[in-house]
């Protein structure tokens, strides 16, 4: 019985190898045939990466274009390179910030970072995300400010606090926190970090 089993196993193995051989032969044939119509036998070079790609959207910090750019200028903001954004948009940002938030209504008003409307919008108008190479990366964690953006950072509440919260985060409490503090799924500790889709 044991011997019979062994024979049977051998036959199965032979059969498997035979199938593998047939499959690989078929695969080789398919590869050769698909290459045969091309002068270049390097399959990799058949992928077309040519052409010019023109900018349509860009983003550094969250919600900047959404909140601070006037409707008619949103496409223009997306196609202005960051090094030219301050000159083109800081004034608009300041006007929109002052229109949106009573926390900057009086002369000398600042947010909790000590920035008045002009300096705060001067920072935001250049829409890049500042990222530290040296340690903690967070939009704001109570200690570190603008050293990156982690998945769990409550960026909207941070921005609402800086827009509406005044010098000590106490002004306009009904507007400075949306009271949604976390994602609807836990993030992963390892790559790719984002949760699987619903």
């Amino acid at each position, binding site marked *: 019985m044991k011997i019979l089993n062994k024979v049977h196993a051998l036959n199965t193995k032979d059969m498997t190898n035979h199938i593998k051989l047939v499959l690989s032969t078929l695969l080789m044939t398919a590869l050769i045939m698909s290459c045969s119509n091309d002068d270049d036998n390097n399959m990799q070079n058949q992928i077309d990466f040519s052409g010019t790609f023109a900018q349509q*959207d860009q983003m550094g910090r969250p919600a900047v274009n959404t909140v601070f750019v006037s409707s008619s200028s949103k496409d223009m903001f997306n196609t202005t390179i960051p090094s030219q954004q301050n000159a083109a948009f800081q004034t608009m940002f300041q006007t929109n910030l002052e229109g949106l938030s009573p926390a900057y209504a009086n002369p000398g008003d600042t947010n909790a970072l000590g920035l008045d409307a002009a300096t705060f919008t001067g920072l935001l108008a250049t829409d890049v995300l500042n990222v530290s190479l040296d340690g903690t990366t967070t939009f704001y964690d109570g200690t570190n400010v603008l050293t990156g953006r982690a998945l769990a950072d409550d960026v909207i509440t941070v921005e609402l606090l800086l827009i509406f919260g005044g010098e000590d985060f106490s002004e306009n409490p009904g507007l400075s926190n949306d009271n949604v503090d*976390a994602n609807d799924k836990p993030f992963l500790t390892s790559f790719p970090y984002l949760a699987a889709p619903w």
Partner: protein
Amino acid sequence: MKNNKLILGIAALTLVGFFMISADHIDAPAVQGGSSDITDFYAFQGEDTNNMVFVANVQGLLSPSATATATFDENVLIEFNIDTTGDNVEDFVIQAIPRDGKMYFFGPTAPTATGLNSAIETMATQSVVDITTYGTSANVATNAGMRFFAGPRDDPFFMDFAQYSAIIGGTATSFNNPGSDTFAGSNVMSVVVEVPKSMIGTSGTINTWVESKRKQ
């Protein structure tokens, strides 16, 4: 329930008529709802703290059923930009472009030209990952010390957008407590890259942003 919330959120968006939604989702007329619409950008230190992770999300507000058929657009280049010198001009780019079910990556590399128009930097380090399909576990590729992912993910963004819209629209005067996450139950198409920090600088602060660029 989650889907109902999403539908309500979309309905609110339509009614209010604002583009004021989320981190960058449908932020501007030319890109809203299209394949080049960036919804979010993240940059953070990796699980291995010698590494930096970049995340670009596009095509927001995908319902689970829409996610199953969502694809990356082969005419849209996603480009991570990195300025190491403080002038807000990119010194390195990492490019991602899909071809036939795979996402190809080039870089990090000094771009041939900076600014609004790009060519694909085919002479740079090339990496590739099979785009993960909906309902399967994440495909992760590694090359030259880097990790790569492309495919659908839960939208990591959270916000009570509906109430924000009501406030901006003048029908409410404050947020609710607790609030309601308008983005609960919705997905995005994600590109995730993890690179050794040594490839993009030494120490200090870098400035980063992501761009979507369409083939002309």
